[in-house]
């Protein structure tokens, strides 16, 4: 087949797709995300239900945590607060039979945490004089609430998040792992 005929075939494909555009829903999502980003600097107000849920879970975790041990104070209230706990190492089954020299196994490298920046949720003074950071699990739709893009098919997926509480209010960041 000659190059001219290839160009002709490609032109037919181009013409067939000439009016293909992104869906109107995408524009809505994009504008919402853009607005959210613009507003992010001062604060982000999100649904009261989410805030109430997060605040309640934060209070509960704090209460339990305070009973077990005095929490470690955080030196500053900057967004980078503390390293969150790494996932537990894989369990190794106990040796039952006679011990044999085992080949040295490399432990799998712990996945590296990747986090987003903190997104402020509320800026109401909290009854805490110290800064607390806790790991919670929330639906992926929460990411959309703060303006991050989430594929519609994954809105119900659980994602890990760090909730930060200090005197400035409540903020959240999201966590993923790189292997």
């Amino acid at each position: 087949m000659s190059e001219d005929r290839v160009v002709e075939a490609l032109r037919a494909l181009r013409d067939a797709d000439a009016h293909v555009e992104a869906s109107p829903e995408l524009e809505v999502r994009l504008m919402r995300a853009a607005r959210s980003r613009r507003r992010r600097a001062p604060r982000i107000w999100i649904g009261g239900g989410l805030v109430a849920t997060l605040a309640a879970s934060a209070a509960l975790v704090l209460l339990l945590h305070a009973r077990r041990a005095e929490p470690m104070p955080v030196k500053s209230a900057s967004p980078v607060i503390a390293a969150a706990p790494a996932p537990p190492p894989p369990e190794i089954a106990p040796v039952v039979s006679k011990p044999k020299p085992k080949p040295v196994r490399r432990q799998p490298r712990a996945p590296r945490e990747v986090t987003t920046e903190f997104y402020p949720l509320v800026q109401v003074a909290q009854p805490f004089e110290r800064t607390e950071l806790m790991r919670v699990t929330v639906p992926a739709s929460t990411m959309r609430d703060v303006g991050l893009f989430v594929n519609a098919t994954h809105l119900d997926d659980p994602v890990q998040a760090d909730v930060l509480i200090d005197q400035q209010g409540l903020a959240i960041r999201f966590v993923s792992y790189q292997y």
Partner: protein
Amino acid sequence: MQEADHQLLKQALASDEGAFTALYHRRQGAVYRFALHMTGSVPIAEDVTQETFLALLTQGARYDESRGSLAAFLYGIARNLVLRRFDKARDFALEESASSEDVLDDLTRRETIEHVRRAVLSLPPVYREAVVLCDLSDASYEEAAEALDCPVGTVRSRLSRARTMLAQKLSGVRGTCNV
């Protein structure tokens, strides 16, 4: 009179939502079709389109109109996002369809176009992007070179090589030239 792209971008960067919307309406089709032709996936093309325009809000200040058109700048952003997707999942390129066998004699126009689409998707990305920009989009060689970050001569040579590959892939399809 229509405002130029760079003027709309300036206004959009100054939080003018109307300007951002106008710019989106003007350029989203090309960005979306580029992503669609590169990936063959509607959800991914939508993701890439949204991320491209959000990136424009954060990186738009880097755009220099003396260096090229905003369309080329947008193609460049979209291309980087697509390549990032390729890095994450290396199976985007569809399997080459059975080009050595003749398909039905009475290929409809639609079927032939789909065949061309699959042939384009089966090209290695470096050649695919040249074809998508120069043959399936309205990008000039200069704009393609800007988006692909390479000299115009490289664009031409990749395009020529891509067309040769397409000719081989499509050689078994009767009616390709009749589309």
